[in-house]
């Protein structure tokens, strides 16, 4: 058995995933430690969502291993799932429930007696509380997205797994979400895996980034590089990703 660093919240090793003859992930290795906000970038169809679904146990993988806070997802999925929060696809939220009811159900699913005050406070900051007692089917895409995020963050799990959560958010909500994620990583020592196409947000939000292409991690950028670009040249990350993709022989 591999030794896992006690600060490691997510350890993905040699992860493979296929849909029939179509190999989607071809040996992905990834790790997230406490305080790290890792951005997963890559072109459409590169396997980002499949990786997210594999990490959250929604897709069975073979071979490969996913450990959440040291717990093997395949061996003890329940204990592993207690360690992460996942924002579901906003289109899959129950349309006939209100936002408040959906939050109550999500709280119950995490073993909480009631929706935490911090979640309701975040709903207020994201501008989602105005519609909290209306049915989800009446929500706009952005409001659905906000509730999906709130569901993912409920109960303060140490690891957050988020897939394209900035889609549909207005500038204020997007800003508030960034502040919340940074605060969670810096003060509460959480870890975040964020799949995104929004390269412009990367330097200001991420501590690390990984480029997934053709089912493999092709390039990584660390906190030093991203930190340098944040101050010197915010557009440099976008150029670096495009250059990495163009120089990739698999592309």
């Amino acid at each position, binding site marked *: 058995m591999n030794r896992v660093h006690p600060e490691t919240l997510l350890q993905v090793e040699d992860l493979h995933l296929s849909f029939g003859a179509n190999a989607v992930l071809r040996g992905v290795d990834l790790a997230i430690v406490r305080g790290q906000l890792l951005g997963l970038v890559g072109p459409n169809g590169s396997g980002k969502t499949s990786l997210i679904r594999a990490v959250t146990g929604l897709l069975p993988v073979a071979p490969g291993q996913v450990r959440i806070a040291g717990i093997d997802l395949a061996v003890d999925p*329940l204990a592993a*799932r207690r360690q992460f929060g996942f924002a579901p696809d906003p289109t899959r939220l129950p349309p006939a*429930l209100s936002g*408040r009811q959906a939050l109550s*159900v999500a*709280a*119950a699913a995490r073993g909480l*007696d*009631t929706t935490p005050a911090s979640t309701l406070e975040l709903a207020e900051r994201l501008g989602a509380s105005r519609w909290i007692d209306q049915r989800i089917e009446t929500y706009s895409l952005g409001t659905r997205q906000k509730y999906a995020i709130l569901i993912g963050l409920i109960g303060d799990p140490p690891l957050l797994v988020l897939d394209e959560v900035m889609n549909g958010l207005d500038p204020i909500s997007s800003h508030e979400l960034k502040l919340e994620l940074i605060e969670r990583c810096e003060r509460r020592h959480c870890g975040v895996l964020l799949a995104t196409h929004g390269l412009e947000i990367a330097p200001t939000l991420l501590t690390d980034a990984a480029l997934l292409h053709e089912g493999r991690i092709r390039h990584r950028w660390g906190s030093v590089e991203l930190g340098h670009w944040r101050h010197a040249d915010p557009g440099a990350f976008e150029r670096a990703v495009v250059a990495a993709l163009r120089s990739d022989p698999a592309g």
Partner: protein
Amino acid sequence: MALSPTNPDLLVRDFLRHNRWSQWRARTAETAFSALALLVFAGFALWVGDSLWTRLLAPGTPWARPLPAALVGVATAFAIVARARSRGQGLARVHASDWLAAMPLPAGARRNARARLVGSDAALWLLGVWLTLAWAWLRADQSAPVLVVALALGSLGGSAIAWLMPGAPSEPAAERIQRRERASAVAIAAGTQGLRLLGAALEPAAARLPRSAPWVAFAFLLFPQSTPLIAVPGLVLLFTALTLSLDLIGHWHVRYLADQAWLDAQPLLPRHLFRAYLPYLTRRTLVLSLIFGACLHVLGAPLLFALALTVMLAAAVADAVLCGFATRRAPGRFPMLLILHGVIVVATTQVLPPALPLVWLGCALTAWRQGNR
């Protein structure tokens, strides 16, 4: 909102019930009208059934003998279990990838919730069967306790099995279902283009989803004692045609609403989208109606009478499809409009039969206009 930690799936069920109740209360007039329409329809069904009970429960029928009655009981149990299994498997497929799929829920909790949901459904069926039996027994002049007991025990046994052993799809079975659904979605006739693709896509999927056909087995109960054995295949075919017509309407309605949802913002007239399904619907209805009419004629119905019923079946399917078109913006009203048309048609048949074509045409035209708005 304070709540005690409980099973999230059951919590969702409770919230949905609460929301539905609130919605009914908020739309008092509409709810009252729906309830009244349902009551009228139920009253009519009970009135029509009166002569049937007497015939079914007559001591001289084959069903009054222990062995055939036991077979009917077993068929009832089987039908209830099959329905519950199908619902349980559907729920299991939804649970595998829904918004709570990545939550830290023990597998047992969701299995338990499925069992409760399927069990409640089976209990409702049991209640329905027993109430119908009680009513039939009360109304029938003679009683055939063997059949009544067999039906009661069969429904009780079926519900108990559904409650205690809801079952879950095995992995290979779930994969097989997914593969079949994917294949259905893509097996469209080569060369089909544009909106007609939508109608063409219905064809293979509908052919693989005969949902009501197993219930045809119960049509045996309706056969009079004097039915010659040679006529049985014809009768079965006749009832199969009827149930497949119901499947056709149900399946089309689901697909039509789904297609409309993603094409709603396109510069597309409602009737143009509706037209995409017409070749398929016409073909299928024609075949089913002809089978229905031919069976009737072969079984001894006069040609004119068989022809009239053939046209009536086709008209009923067309009317149901138009009701679906009319209620495309509020699909919840589809059953209500169907019941309303049913009541109008039946009332006309009783009061002034010659006016039936005109009344029916009026209903169809109103639905067509509503749909085009």
